[in-house]
Every structure is written in C-alpha cells, then in structure tokens.
C-alpha cells in the first residue's frame, strides 16, 4: 500500500517550494472509519504562550500552536499535561507576512501559523508577564555600552600586528 495514504502528510506546499516547518516531528496515522481512537502519549507538539496582540479579557490566554492541532487537542494538552482547567478554545489561522527579500527584491511570504485563545474559568486570571521591565533596561544599556567599547578597542588594535602577520604576540620587544 502506498505509505503516503496511511500516514498523515507533512505540510508540503502544492507549488513545491520549501516545506513548512512543523511543530511536531512525528507522522501520526491518518484516521479511517473503524479505527480505534488515537491516543497519543508524550505528544511531540509544543505550544508557545505569547503576549496578546490585542487586549483580551482577564481569563484569556493566547498561544501559538501547530497548524495540525485542533481545539480538542489544545484543550486536552493543557488539562492532561499541565492540569490547567479550560473552558473554551477559539482558534484561527493567521497568514504570514509578505515581505520583500533583501537580496533580489522579490516577494517572500512567511509561514502561516495557528493562534489559540484559551478561556480559563471566570475565577482564574492570567496576565502575561512583563519580560522587559524598566529596571533591567539600565543594566542592558550598560552591557551594550561595554560591547561597543570592546568593538572600538578591536578596531584600534586590529592593525597593530599587521606588519608581522603570523607571528605570536609574545614575540619581540
């Protein structure tokens, strides 16, 4: 039997251009009528918790999930693995951005991805943490300054041993 008919396909684009990247690296068997329900232990998928693009109600969490996941998959994933109670899941597929390539100027489209809005029970709330707080900003600026200084030093000292290339630095006066 043709293997491609039994197992689910990867997301190859019809026009034959580069294959889309799956979140799961496994091929799951395609369901046929009469088959037992597929039970997946140790699923290969991951779900990315992201900051909501638009403000959401307090008990809604936004994820980026694999295009292959359904609402039931997402709900079971959270409930069974992480023990998070889920009231409702809303998913939609977002089209990737179309940009100009830097080399050649032709149009390039990023991959599509699926976004899931998971509603927790009304008593629970979730707020996406502030990953770039103001306090840490000063530290980061200092680190960037250090890097800049190092770069400058490198530039100035680059030409020091140019006239004796290959020789080690401890040789000489």
């Amino acid at each position, binding site marked *: 039997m043709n293997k491609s008919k039994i197992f689910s396909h990867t997301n190859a684009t019809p026009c034959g251009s580069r294959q889309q990247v799956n979140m799961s690296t496994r091929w799951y068997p395609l369901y046929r009528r009469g088959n037992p329900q597929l039970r997946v232990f140790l699923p290969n998928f991951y779900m990315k918790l992201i900051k909501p*693009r*638009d*403000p*959401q*109600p307090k*008990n*809604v969490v936004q994820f980026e999930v694999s295009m292959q996941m359904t609402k039931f998959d997402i709900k079971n994933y959270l409930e069974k693995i992480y023990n998070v109670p889920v*009231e*409702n899941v*809303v998913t939609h597929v977002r089209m990737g951005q*179309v940009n*100009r390539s830097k080399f050649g100027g032709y*149009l390039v489209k990023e991959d599509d991805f699926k976004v899931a809005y998971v*509603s927790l029970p009304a008593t629970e709330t979730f707020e996406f943490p502030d990953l770039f707080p103001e306090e840490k900003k000063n530290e980061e600026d200092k680190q960037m300054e250090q890097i800049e200084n190092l770069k400058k030093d490198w530039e100035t000292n680059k030409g020091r041993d140019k006239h004796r290339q290959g020789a080690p630095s401890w040789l000489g006066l």
Partner: protein
Amino acid sequence: MAATRLVWKGRTSSTFLRVSYLSRDLARRNHNAASLSEYTDVPEYPEILDENREARKRRKTEAWHQKITGLPTLEQKLMELNMPKYYGYWSCRLHDAKPTLQGTPFTRYATRTHVVEGLPEGYHEKEAAGALAKELKDSVEELILLNFQSTLSRRNFGLGRAIEKRQTQNFLLGLHKILASSLAPSAEHLKDAVVDIRPRVEAFWFLGGLQPDNLLKKKRRNFKYMKDKEHDPMERSIQAESSPCLCVRTSLGLPEVVSREDSLATSAPVPVENLDPRAYGFKFKHKHATIVTGFWPGEKKEHSQLWLHSREFEEKFGLEFGLHNVHNALIQKMIISSFSQAFAHATYQGFGPVTELTYPIVHQSAISDGQKWNFSLYQMNTCVLHSENATENPYNNILWLSPEQNLFEAVEESGVKGLNEEVLTSLIAMYLKKGIIRENASPYLAPYKYLAGHNAPEEYREEFQNYLRDLLSGRPRKLLKPEMYLWEKIYKKDNNTRPYESPRRFFEDHFNQMNPEKRRLDEYSPIYIPKACRKDKKQKHKPRLDSENLYKYD
C-alpha cells in the same frame, strides 16, 4: 455669500488673480456699509468657537445629531441615520439567542445596564393576581396536558431547538389566549390588546469609550494631527437583534419602576468592559442601521405590555460551555432582548441613538420553556451611548431578573403534578399592570408623527417609504461593496509589483478614485426620465433622495 469668481488662466510664473467685471459688482455690494437696522445698542458677538481639530469634528457630529433630532417624522430620522453609509455600517452583532461565553460583562457595558437579582417589590398587584390565578388554574393545567403530555402533531417541524421553540411558542400562545380572555373584563387595557407572533425586533446604536484596535492605532500614528491621541477611545456601531416568541401590545406605556433621579438609575455600578467586542466573541457584519419594532409605524397600540421569550438556546450553550455558565447566558439574553425592544420602541416615539429620552421606558418580559420560568423588568433611562455618554452618562438602565421557578413539577398520565401558583400569579400580575398616559410622549416628532402625514407629494412619500422599507429589510444590495482581493493587496497595495498597469480600481490613485466607505446614501446617479414621461420638459432626472424634503432636485 456671493464670493468673487476666481478665474485662473494657465499656470505660469506670472499667474495672478483675474476678477471678471460681472462679479466685481457683487463684491462691491458685500463691502458696503450695513443698514441701520442691523445695529444694536449692546454689541452681540458671535460665540467664540474652539478651532482645533477635535472641536471642529465634534461640532460637525453634533450638527448631524441635531439634524436627526429636528426631523419631523420617524421615517426621515431612520433615513438620515443611514445617510452617511451607502453600503451600511460595519457593526457589532449582538444576537440575544446566540450568547457568547465572555459576553455578559460587555453587554452590560454596551447597554449601560445594572442587573438586580429579584423583581422589585410593590410594582405589581399580587393579591388581585393571586385570586385570579386560582380561577384559571384548571384551564392552565388542561393547556399543559395538551402541550406536554402528547405530541400535538405527527409531523416534525425541524430539528432539535426548532422543535422546542415551536412547542414553547404554541404553549405561550395558548396561555396568552386563556389569560387575555379571562382577564379582559377586569383589565381595560387588555380588551383591545394586540399580539405579535415572532416579531422582528432590532436596534442600532453607537457605543463610545471603546479601546482602539491596531488598525486605528496605526492610522493615528502615521497621521500628524492624531499622533499624540493614539490611545484615545473610539466609537463603534452596535446592531442588536431580539427574537421574542410573543409580544402583547397595548395603547399605553408602563409607568416607571424607580424615578429617573433615584440613585439606582443614576449611579448604579456598571462594569467598564471596553475592549474590542471581538475579544468577547462577538462578530461584525455590514448592515444598514435597522431599528425595527415588529409593527408598522402608524399603529395605535405602540407600547408593549409583555414580551414572552423561549429558552431553546440554553441546551446548546450548556453542552458547549458547561451548565455553570448558563445563568450568565440567560442574563445576556435578557439584557440584549430587553434593551433592543425598549430602544426600538423609544425610536418609534422619536428618541433614538442620538436623541436622549425625556422619560423612562419600562418593559416586562418572561422567558420560559413551559416549565422553567424567569420574569424580568427593564427600565430604560438612557438610550444615547455615543462618545463619552457610554461612561459619563447621568443615567443608567436597570434590569430586574427573578430567580428561576417551575410552573409544574412533572406531567404524567394522571395529570399535571405540582402546579406552582406563584408563577401564575406573577404572570397575571404582569398582565394586569396598567399603563399611564404620558403628556408629550413624542417631543421630537411632529404632531403627525409618521410619513403618512407629511406634506410632500404622495409619490415622493410612497417611494421614500418603499426605499426605507428595503433598507430596513436587511437584504443585501444587488451590487455589493467593492472589495480588494488578497492578490491585489499583496501585489498592488502593499508592494507595487505592477507599476505599468493602469490604476482603475477603487483603491488606486486616479481621477475616479472613490472610498466605498465614504459613499453616502444620496450619492447615486438619479434615474433618467424619458421626454414623453416628463411633467416638466426641463427636468431630465428624478429628484435625489434627501432626508428633509424626501426628494429634492439637484
């Protein structure tokens, strides 16, 4: 305002204004001294107007609101409300029979409703109702047996919820017949009450104070004058639909429950849920602003006595979101249906989304599936919610919702078990509530109220009414709104990959470019009249749609 006619002749470096000799006289006339009658002892200065962008925009919208308020008939007001959008408003749809999981706080904010558990004391006469309930107990039991003991007909009308809805409707109609016929002798207003079966009730309003979405924020960021107002609140249009089973209409409106100055009506807490409605699960759709009550304008019985709803949406909602959320869905249903019903009635009295009420409007409703009953009372104190009125309104609306009660415990072969007389009493008390005569019920409508009394020629009135009726029917136009296709967005709009193609589409830069969003209802080519059919040989086209004069020649 006869300005001098400017005549440009060519665009050379030595271009100068040439004033034609004819218009020089007109200019001279304007610059002469004013006549003596125009002078007064005390100088009357015109009002100092704020000339910044925001204030000018405000004045423009307020002038539009004043125009609508000043129109004499209901039909003209509805037409003027639709005038800015030829293809309809892109409005948030609130359907009462399709509640969403997160939607209840938003509906409370969108309708500015404060929800109170339990009906108010002292509004209904319970004793008289109790006595009548005892008399009607038997006939109600017979009706329950008829409807719930055996199937009325072998034919199945639809599936699932449709069957339940039809069954409920039959039962409620039967119940109304019993109650109306036996209560009529003791209640004058019920003698000539009218019943609407499954009336179409819709309401449209503008809701302010909402957070701007990303598209609007991007637009503001890239516009010089709105750069610092990026996060200012925005306004959206909301279209609500109510789907009642029955409406009992009488000629007098119900009295207020609490005074409009009472603290419950002025400072009751209303949640501030001003996110994008799509975050709560509501969808948007293009539609004309429809405000429909379920009866034609001109009806004598234009106030509602009682609304009866069915609860077939609860089953699907419970299966999808869990039974513990069904109560929230019920509140959402009652708020949306009560508000849209009260709002539609208010509009038919001359108020509307831009005209504030002068007296509160009260509506009673009951929702049931035959066995489970909830009663509710809605007092609408404000209907204007645009711009800052959504949050800074002196009034707010109130919904009283009673707890769930069963009319009967079970229906068995032997008969009805456990008929609850309290439910019957509450229902009869709602029927018995008398309306009051309000003086100046429609202060913003002319004495003739509706288009039939307008003094325009009959053919104008007829065509205006037909056009409005087609608009309010909600049918799509034959030629839909021009749409930018995805390939056009990618290859023409976002990245110009076809610079040598002629720009002929509506979104492209050329002489005929038009924004379909800005097309008004009166922006169309009037119909040509052939010479043989003309009354005036010089008038080649039919007059254009106009809200003040119905139709007006260009």
